[in-house]
């Protein structure tokens, strides 16, 4: 199945994307979901199980904001553990994508074998 790798990739980075969005500004689920569904084409409904899980793991915290129209809105913000997780995961991501890019790109310089004169 050709799309399998894409699904696995999205599955892996979804949490990282949410952490990164929240690092820029506190946000609410609808906003996060629509940003992510535009950007990486995921089902909007999956944001809620994910947010619950991140809350269980202590990566995000919620607070309510009174709204002028309708009921108050639940906002998410990063906890300290969330910030740490973001730093660790984005470093891992950068390292990983660089390594893959270097292999995929044909014009990448091939490291000379040890002992060989460059």
């Amino acid at each position, binding site marked *: 199945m050709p799309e399998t790798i894409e699904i696995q990739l999205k599955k892996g980075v979804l949490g990282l994307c949410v952490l990164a969005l929240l690092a820029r500004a506190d946000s609410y689920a*609808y906003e996060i979901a629509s940003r992510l569904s535009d950007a990486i084409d995921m*089902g909007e409904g*999956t944001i809620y199980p994910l947010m619950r899980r991140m809350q*269980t793991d202590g990566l995000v915290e919620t607070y309510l904001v009174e709204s002028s129209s309708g009921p108050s809105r639940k906002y998410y913000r990063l906890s300290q553990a969330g910030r740490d997780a973001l730093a660790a995961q984005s470093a891992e991501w950068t390292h990983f994508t660089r390594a893959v890019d270097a292999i995929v790109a044909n014009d990448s310089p091939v490291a000379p074998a040890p002992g060989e004169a460059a």
Partner: protein
Amino acid sequence: MTRAEFLSRLKKGLVGLPLSTASDIVNDYETHFTDGAAAGRTEAEVAAALGDPDRLARELRAEAGAQRWHQEKNPSAAAGAVFAVLGLGAIDILILLPILMGVIGTLFGFAIAVIALFVSGGAIMVAGPFADLPGGAFAAILAGLGLMAGAASAGALLAIVTIWLVNGIVWFARLHYRLLKPALEPQSTQVVGDPA
């Protein structure tokens, strides 16, 4: 699918969760519909983008089961977590099921054996001195105590293995249900059946 239809299917799928958790979840999705309407989308569009409510309910139940298991390590929480995970019905979990059943059956058998050993140790300790066993009354009491101590330590070991097993199952399930495949392609199934 309309908003009311989506929410009623979601609610149906969440039966069995604590009421406060379930209503919290339903609130989340209600707000999602309200926000979607404010952004100018129809109920059918929002429902299609959200994905299958039955599947979402299964994932949310599995997550709630896992959460409870992390908070309280007791047999009922363990059973809840395992059943919620099985409820996901992911193919590879179903394939694992026979193996899992074997492992759980074995653990259960060991648990019964440990209890039996403990009880018989107690019986030997109490009744031994009067049963005229070889070695005398004192040896019988010691043997009974020894059996009971052995059973207790085997029981503790068994508990550790069981906790480890349930943790493993929960971990395995979490790998799978985050973003299961159909949730990625919400339009393909939802829009077809929509009369509008």
